[in-house]
């Protein structure tokens, strides 16, 4: 059987590109690791894209998981929507959608759905550099993957994103002169390998803490809405009905815009 998440990507884009596969399944696509049971997509931020995605999900018998509605009014505030269904073999399929993924700039996002990109590619998958930025999460296990993903980039980009101290040491003299990364500066200053490793660890920890703070703000803001969502058992309702109710609840209980400033790249959440 094919990877169902790849097939879903094709299905979502059957009438024109609205969804780009990201995160764990993108890592599978780039043949680095099989590490995710869920599918994550960056959705085009339009009502039409939401409508089409909901139609695809409904065809598969999906139900809402406790999460904000798949509606641009909340998606543009950095919220994400989550769904679940069983595949023909009874396996759990989880589908997550976001239109404003963390740490991606408006420029990154604007490149995803340009007409030129729609031509020629069999499967719509997020590019490696934005994928790396999405992977800069609070989870330690994402950072070795970032090192592997970075190896697929040209060296001048790799040195700005890799988490591998040996690659930084190898690339610094040729490609790191203009870099502001502290691990790269450490190499160029003649510091020990241990010092480079320490700088990398500090950098990863800072990224993890930023992501944790971002998600905590969303968690707190979502609590009243989620309580109502659970009380109404929306996860048990057919998708169109659940979606309608979720929008009604969100209007009352979920703030639309929670985008908070973040250091680093672009208009992240």
């Amino acid at each position: 059987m094919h990877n169902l998440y790849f097939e879903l990507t094709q299905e979502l884009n059957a009438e024109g590109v609205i969804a780009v596969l990201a995160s764990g399944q993108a890592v599978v696509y780039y043949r680095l690791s099989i590490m995710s049971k869920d599918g994550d997509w960056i959705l085009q931020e339009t009502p039409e894209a939401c409508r089409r995605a909901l139609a695809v999900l409904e065809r598969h018998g999906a139900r809402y998981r406790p999460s904000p509605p798949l509606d641009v009014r909340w998606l543009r505030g950095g919220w994400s929507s989550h769904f679940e269904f069983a595949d023909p073999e009874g396996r759990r399929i989880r589908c997550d959608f976001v239109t404003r993924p963390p740490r991606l700039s408006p420029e990154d996002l604007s490149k995803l759905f340009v007409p030129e990109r729609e031509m020629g590619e069999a499967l719509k998958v997020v590019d490696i550099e934005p994928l790396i930025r999405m992977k800069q999460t609070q989870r330690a296990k994402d950072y070795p993957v970032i090192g592997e993903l970075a190896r697929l980039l040209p060296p001048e980009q790799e040195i700005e994103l890799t988490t591998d101290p040996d690659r930084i040491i190898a690339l610094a003299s040729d490609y790191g002169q203009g870099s502001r990364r502290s691990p790269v500066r450490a190499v160029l200053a003649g510091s020990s390998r241990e010092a480079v490793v320490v700088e990398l660890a500090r950098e990863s920890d800072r990224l993890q803490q930023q992501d944790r703070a971002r998600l905590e703000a969303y968690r707190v803001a979502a609590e009243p809405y989620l309580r109502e969502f659970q009380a109404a058992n929306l996860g048990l309702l057919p998708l169109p009905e659940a979606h309608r109710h979720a929008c009604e609840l969100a209007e009352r209980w979920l703030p639309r815009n929670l985008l908070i400033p973040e250091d680093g790249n672009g208009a992240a959440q």
Partner: protein
Amino acid sequence: MELLSEDDLNLKDMTPEELDKAWDLWFDLAQTTNDSDPPYTHGVLVLCDVPPPGKNPDERDDT
């Protein structure tokens, strides 16, 4: 003889069909941990620890 762990599968040299099979087998096996999966997945928000319906947040038992 090459001894490879699951994490060292040479995905790059697989044909598309082999990659599909490898993923399919892994996905089958991974179903066994569905009930114990952490509620947080990757960089988007999967909310967890939702209070029971009808319970006031001030009455939550966080122990």
